[in-house]
């Protein structure tokens, strides 16, 4: 097993966010998988459901590896985790390149979905606890920067992958070459993270900052036995479900919504709306998580869930009479969606301490996997049933919005139920010190 890389004297903590970003900007490519779908479908004779398989398996593996690999990440440190993420994510592309070249689709599912998905999960949680230790007075901002990178990864990969396919061609050889270049480029890009990431040498890395290890400390094993963990699980799941419901169906939703109005939405305008939502998602990750450092974690989730429910209510009440209002409300909801992801590590740190916050965060991400299924299922299923019933325009989504409001209210109540963790779950100070000793051998 490897040892966490200790920072040498004078190491700047401002080197750690770019290290984290190099990993998150890479693995965020997962959200741009749709660029490869049409070429794969025509080159390998697949339907839409089949071409979505590598992405779906990758997201399942993200949740599983984050949940089950979290303790290993805590034990072996961020450099080990980033190396595993680099190797898995890049190998996933290389295996997929082989699959595309030999027209073996199962190799693409195995490579991108299974192997690459492990890289996503381990990479996602790899910098969380390290960033919190370096920025104990600004944990929301620090983890927000990294998790913003996951949103930013798709912004980079989407045009980049499309341009590459345009140059190499969309036949199986062109796709294989594109996969190969992705694998090699991401390996080089992520190397920065592996080389730069360091664990702070002391409990108080910056003069004046509160001690990182001070206060309550709860192990990952104990954390999942507390009501606080499950309250936060519900909070995250409800917040993500509400956001993903819009995000997944944004283009057809805005087109359907204003189809009968005096201002119908064209296909290119709908694409612009999707892009704007991505920007709101990313801005929310950094903006709201930074705000959480100022107003507190519980208050910021009151805003995400309470104001989010009001935004859905406004859309449902105003209908197709005000397009700017619809766009504005959707942008606010998506900014809360991003903010919810980015603020949760700092909320966990407030409740359970820094001891095993990465592992606890990994286990909590199963809420994301659940929401990833729940959100699109609700919106798509209801819209299809309403269409069958002969409804159109805003009426297609009214019921979905009502359900989203209900889910956000459930999340709001769960957030209100969060209380400090009972002392019986705290780990003894001696055990924490012994574990720290084991993790910090001579540099």
């Amino acid at each position, binding site marked *: 097993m490897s040892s966490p890389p200790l920072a040498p004297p004078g190491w700047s903590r401002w080197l750690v966010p770019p290290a984290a970003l190099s990993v998150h900007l890479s693995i965020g490519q997962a959200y741009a998988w749709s660029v490869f779908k049409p070429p794969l479908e025509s080159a390998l004779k697949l339907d839409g459901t089949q071409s979505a398989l590598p992405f779906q398996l990758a997201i399942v593996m993200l949740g599983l590896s984050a949940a089950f690999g979290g303790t290993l990440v805590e034990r072996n440190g961020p450099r080990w985790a980033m190396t595993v993420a680099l190797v898995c994510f890049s190998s996933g592309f290389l295996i997929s390149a082989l699959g595309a070249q030999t027209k073996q689709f199962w190799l693409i599912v195995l490579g991108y979905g299974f192997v690459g998905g492990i890289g996503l999960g381990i990479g996602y949680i790899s910098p969380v606890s390290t960033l919190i230790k370096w920025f104990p007075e600004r944990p929301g901002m620090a983890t927000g920067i990294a998790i913003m990178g996951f949103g930013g990864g798709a912004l980079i990969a989407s045009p*980049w992958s499309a341009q590459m396919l345009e140059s190499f061609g969309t036949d199986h050889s062109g796709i294989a070459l594109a996969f190969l270049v992705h694998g090699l480029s991401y390996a080089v890009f992520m190397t*920065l993270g592996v080389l730069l990431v360091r664990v702070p040498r002391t409990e108080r890395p910056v003069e004046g900052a509160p001690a990182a290890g001070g206060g309550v400390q709860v192990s990952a094993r104990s954390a999942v036995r507390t009501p606080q963990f499950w309250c936060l699980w519900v909070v995250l799941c409800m917040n993500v479900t509400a956001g993903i419901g819009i995000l997944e169906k944004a283009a057809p939703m805005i087109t359907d919504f204003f189809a009968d109005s005096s201002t119908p939405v064209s296909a290119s305008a709908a694409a612009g709306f999707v892009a704007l939502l991505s920007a709101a998602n990313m801005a929310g990750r950094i903006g709201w998580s930074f705000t959480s450092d100022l107003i507190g974690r519980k208050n910021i989730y009151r805003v995400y869930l309470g104001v989010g429910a009001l935004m859905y209510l406004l859309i449902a009440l105003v209908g197709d009479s005000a397009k700017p209002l619809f766009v504005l409300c959707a942008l606010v909801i998506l900014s809360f969606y991003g903010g919810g992801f980015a603020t949760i590590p700092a909320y966990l740190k407030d409740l359970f301490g820094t001891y095993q916050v990465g592992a606890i965060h990994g286990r909590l991400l199963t809420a994301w996997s659940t929401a990833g299924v729940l959100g699109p299922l609700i919106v798509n299923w209801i819209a299809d049933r309403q269409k069958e019933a002969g409804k159109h325009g805003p009426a297609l989504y009214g019921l979905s919005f009502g359900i989203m409001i209900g889910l956000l209210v459930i999340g709001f109540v769960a957030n209100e139920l969060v209380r400090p963790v009972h002392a019986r779950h705290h780990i003894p100070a001696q055990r924490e010190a012994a574990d720290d000793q084991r993790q910090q051998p001579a540099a």
Partner: protein
Amino acid sequence: MTSDSSPPPSRRGLIALAWLWVGAPLAYGLYELVHKATQLFTG
């Protein structure tokens, strides 16, 4: 060899390089995003 009492080396160059490494592709992604988002108002 550096003695223990010498001040730690300045990392400004490394910090700038690291932020440029991640900032440049992010700026490219944001540029493409803004370009596409304007279609909502012009399309």
